[in-house]
């Protein structure tokens, strides 16, 4: 950026980057202040995810393997909140078990102040239970399926599972009707398939980061019944389940925030082609 551009073609190829930065910032802020409601296409994976929860019979037990990271929350929070709302809107029994160190903090915040189960008429210990952090890994998932109490003897408050009414007849995979596997490391998608689908033929749906989506695609719909990846599909599940949340703003901001970059990308190429074919400053 040191030499001063002289021709028009050179100038549009050497615009100060700070214009790109400023425009991106402005375009990102607009939908945060005023969401625009730009259209969203709902993908098949999201519909599969919704249906897997929606078709559960009243009284079904859902196990949520919750591996959420604080640093990556922006990417997945819309998925989480819409899922919690869907679960509490239905007559289901939910076991949240934390598989990442940050997860207890996140689930407690969500259920404490964002999606309050009591607003849906749900009671702790009767309709849902939260189990603390345990570094399960794939082997731990297998152990959980075989014997829940072997991995989590107590809930997050230290109460033995045997003293929790909801857990009375829930000991292992046989009582579980749906597994929701939430994770942040792309290859982990194989864990629930190997530990829940293959041995026990349990229905599994997954929720992960945007960049992990393509690795989940090959398993849908044969091995997983639905999947959400990134904030984009978080928005989709908000729409499908009719539970508005932070996803809509995220998608709008993504739509607009990328536009300045695309503009600069086009300018960069016009500049190159102009310098090559019009002023012939650059050779092939």
């Amino acid at each position: 950026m040191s030499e001063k551009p002289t021709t028009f073609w050179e100038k549009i190829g050497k615009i100060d980057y700070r214009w790109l930065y400023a425009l991106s910032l402005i375009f990102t802020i607009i939908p945060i202040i005023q969401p625009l409601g730009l259209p969203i296409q709902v993908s098949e994976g999201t519909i599969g995810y919704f249906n897997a929860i929606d078709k559960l019979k009243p009284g079904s037990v859902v196990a949520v393997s919750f591996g959420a990271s604080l640093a990556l929350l922006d990417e997945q929070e819309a998925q989480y909140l819409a899922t919690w709302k869907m679960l509490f809107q239905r007559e289901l029994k939910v076991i949240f078990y934390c598989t990442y160190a940050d997860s207890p903090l996140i689930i407690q915040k969500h259920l404490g102040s964002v999606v309050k189960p009591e607003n849906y008429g749900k009671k702790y210990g009767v309709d849902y239970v939260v189990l603390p952090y345990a570094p399960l890994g794939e082997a731990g998932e297998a152990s959980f399926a075989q014997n829940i109490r072997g991995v989590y003897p107590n809930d997050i408050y230290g109460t033995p599972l045997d003293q929790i009414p909801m857990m009375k007849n829930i000991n292992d995979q046989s009582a579980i009707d749906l597994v929701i596997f939430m994770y942040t490391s792309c290859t982990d998608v194989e864990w629930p398939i190997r530990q829940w689908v293959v041995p026990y033929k349990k229905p599994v749906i997954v929720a992960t980061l945007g960049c992990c989506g393509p690795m989940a695609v090959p398993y849908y719909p044969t091995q997983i019944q639905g999947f959400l990846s990134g904030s984009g599909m978080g928005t989709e599940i908000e729409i499908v389940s009719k539970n508005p949340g932070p996803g809509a703003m995220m998608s709008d901001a993504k739509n607009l925030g990328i536009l300045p970059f695309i503009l600069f990308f086009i300018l960069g190429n016009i500049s190159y082609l102009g310098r090559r074919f019009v002023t012939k400053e650059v050779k092939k």
Partner: protein
Amino acid sequence: MILSYFTPFEVFAQFKGIATNWVVIISAVTVAMGLVYMTNAQIKMYQRNRTPLQLAYVLTTYFFFFAFLISGLAYPGDINSREYQWWFQNIYGNVGATVYAVMFFTLASSAYRTFVVSSIEAVALLLGGMLYTLRQIPLFQVYIPWIVPLGEWVLLVPNTAGGRGAVVAAALAALVVGIRTLWGKEVTLEVAS
């Protein structure tokens, strides 16, 4: 380590367990060394530029250093205490997330410079980048629906192929460095001794 990988004998697995524990302890003990080097650099910077602002920078570093050190020791539960975590999350959590955000800008400006149709390789780079970018933006998924399968194809086919080749090549080179080190012929480490 290598024997514990190839052989089924418990003794090597036990040795591996002990060794991995030891290296964690050794590195944990050395952690304060960084402070010495940071102090050297801070003193030198101030000596070169004796202005009130530079002094303020230096004092800020040490103020936050001692504030965190003391609060990490003072609260019951030390660094796991609510109070310490509150400070750490509000500062480090936000700085961390914002540094990631800044990378959006640096990646965008680097692409403005390099995503030009100047050669076949450059076209391959920009196609790989742009197709998968558009695939991830909701608006393009609506108005250009074919971008979704195309973007995913880029990721799952050519990206997998190129990435796999590069990983194999780099792994072989790393392996050779490792064997040479155990052979005692790694000159880099001889220099350090």
